[in-house]
């Protein structure tokens, strides 16, 4: 095939193609490229350089076509990731591309061909959908907030009683104390004054507690997720609902399993789910008077083999009537009187729970009543699927998966914050070694960051068990204590890529992770 034939073939293509010499001088553009990049034949003849055409968007810096050098060096075709380019002549016009470059070598001169795959339309669509999803999420957040306000509205009666009681005590006691001290303090009555002040003080702190519980519930939640101990969260809700429970003569008992129940969720939203479910149970119980008393049990359990977490709200009320069973998750369906229920409680619970990859369904309590079951995925799975979502949707680059094992949810949160700031890192948190080990192979984990001392199994043993596996992830061990003994044990283990002495700063953590990826070993 002659050069002319070849060039006319290229001219038929829709995608821009450039051919340039080794020193990045353009020698040929096909028709598509000429129109795309506004290159006139006259410009071409004047000896056009790549850097005369493309700049980085929003700047005047020329774009560095590294992949050309790479392809020249290796003599292999090279494909770039997603690239954002603007035209030097018209800086307002910018494109998203994936580039493919290859070198065709002949005896006297190397030619390099660059093919442009235009992603601009896809990218714009992607951004458009991203914005629309964001708008939807905002709308969703508003509905959730409205439901919370409705819940508070329904609770006003019991809350105002709960606040006015201590307020009366505080104000009244201060009034008495002031009167006793005026005009001249009488020492004979100092006991009464002391008691007054103490009672007032206690009552004020009661009000403070009620308000802070309320604030925790009403706080408009961001999308942010955290590692949360569900047991603590449940205790908060039980204390917030205290007045409501007492007023309705219900006994609410927590039944938590001994294992840790840590979920990767948004605490304010899950608080709302618990709140709604327990309030529903209280409302259902108000209609009946069971022999053994009105009872609600709040279970928290973990399925050891699959890692699922379960939250169960069990009541001994009348149960769900058959005709309503199908509709309980339909928005605005309510069996309560007008003004008492919005009909949004359960649909919102369902929305929230499914957004965290969970499920919610009702069952009949053995012996009568209703049980609502909420199932969450184990933290490793939810952390992985959530964090990976933030990788750029188009580039085919894989995120670097970092599994962090620590039994303290707060530590996971801090590390998630640090590691999450690196765009290409996917953070997977775990609180149990057994769960983490299952995850390592499933998700192709790149780095495991673990404490030397963790309950059940040490980080070193874990590294050892993977040491003969060629696919082993790199291990980085953290420790707060004396390390010399432990350093000796690490010696033979090739898959231990680093060591972090606690406390450490963010930059040190990131450096250690990066150098572990390069294959280095750092202490």
């Amino acid at each position, binding site marked *: 095939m002659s050069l002319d034939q070849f060039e006319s073939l290229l001219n038929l293509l829709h995608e821009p193609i450039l051919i340039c010499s080794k020193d990045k001088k353009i020698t040929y553009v096909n028709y598509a490229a000429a129109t795309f990049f506004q290159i006139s034949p006259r410009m071409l003849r004047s000896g056009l350089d790549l850097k005369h055409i493309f700049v980085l968007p929003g700047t005047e810096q020329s774009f560095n076509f590294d992949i050309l050098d790479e392809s020249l060096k290796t003599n292999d075709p090279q494909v770039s990731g997603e690239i954002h380019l603007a035209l030097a002549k018209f800086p307002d016009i910018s494109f998203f591309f994936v580039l493919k470059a290859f070198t065709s070598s002949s005896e006297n001169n190397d030619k390099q061909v660059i093919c442009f795959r235009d992603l601009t339309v896809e990218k714009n669509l992607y951004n458009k959908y991203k914005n629309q999803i964001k708008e939807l999420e905002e709308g969703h957040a508003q509905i959730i907030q409205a439901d919370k306000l409705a819940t508070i509205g329904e609770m006003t009666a019991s809350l105002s009683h709960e606040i*006015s*009681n201590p307020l*009366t005590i505080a104000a009244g006691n201060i009034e008495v104390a002031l009167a006793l001290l005026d005009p001249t303090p009488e020492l004979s009555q100092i006991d009464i004054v002391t008691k007054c002040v103490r009672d007032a003080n206690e009552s004020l702190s009661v009000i403070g507690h009620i308000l802070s519980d309320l604030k925790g519930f009403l706080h408009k939640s961001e999308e942010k997720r955290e590692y949360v101990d569900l047991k603590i969260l449940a205790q908060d809700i039980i204390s917030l609902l205290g007045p409501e429970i007492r007023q309705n003569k219900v006994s609410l008992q927590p039944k938590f399993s001994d294992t840790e129940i840590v979920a990767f969720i948004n605490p304010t939203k899950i608080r709302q789910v618990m709140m709604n479910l327990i309030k529903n149970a209280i409302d259902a119980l108000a209609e009946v008077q069971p022999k053994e008393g009105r009872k609600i049990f709040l279970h928290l359990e973990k399925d050891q083999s699959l890692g699922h977490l379960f939250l169960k709200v069990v009541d001994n009320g009348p149960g769900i009537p058959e005709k309503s069973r199908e509709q309980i998750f339909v928005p605005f369906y309510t069996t309560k009187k007008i003004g008492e229920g919005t009909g949004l409680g359960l649909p919102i619970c369902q929305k929230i729970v499914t957004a965290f990859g969970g499920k919610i369904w009702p069952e009949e309590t053995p012996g009568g009543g209703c049980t609502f079951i909420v199932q969450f995925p184990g933290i490793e799975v939810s952390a992985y699927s959530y964090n990976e979502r933030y990788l750029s949707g188009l580039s085919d680059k894989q995120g670097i998966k970092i599994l962090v094992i620590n039994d303290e949810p707060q530590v996971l949160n801090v590390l998630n914050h640090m590691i999450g700031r690196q765009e290409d890192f996917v953070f997977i948190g775990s609180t149990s070694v057994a769960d983490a080990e299952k995850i390592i192979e499933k998700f192709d984990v790149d780095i495991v960051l673990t404490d030397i001392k963790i309950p059940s199994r040490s980080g070193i043993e874990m590294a050892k068990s993977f040491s003969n596996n060629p696919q082993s992830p790199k291990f980085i061990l953290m420790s707060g204590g004396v390390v010399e003994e432990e350093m000796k044990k690490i010696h033979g283990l090739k898959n231990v890529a680093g060591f972090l002495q606690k406390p450490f700063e963010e930059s040190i953590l990131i450096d250690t992770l990066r150098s572990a990826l390069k294959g280095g070993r750092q202490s």
Partner: protein
Amino acid sequence: MKLTDQAGPFSVLIIDNEQKICDLILLFLQSTGKFKTLVTANNTVQAMQKLQNQTFDLLIADHNMPGKSGIELIGTLSRTPRFRTMEYVLISGCLTKEDVVLAMNEGGDNILVKPFSRTQLLNKVAEVLKTNIL
């Protein structure tokens, strides 16, 4: 204000499940020196026991209590001939319209809303006992 040991003509029974509220009302009433007996109870059962051996001029009851509510107690008592002459004050942090109607039907038409101050309480008590205790 002085806490006097001076005794007056009136006797009062105070019922609230919150002991601190009882104590407070006690202090408020003591300061006037117009009361000869002041008794407190934390629920309606205790209150009924105290009412067995003794009669009172005034009963001050909280509405919102575990067990029987203040309105129920007042309703029961106002239908009992022995307590015909007793006066009632109902205190509450939050009453719905239905509660108020119910309270009035049951004979508890003197309502004091929490939070209340000393003056508010004494004014209400004075109004009910038709005497000037301030």
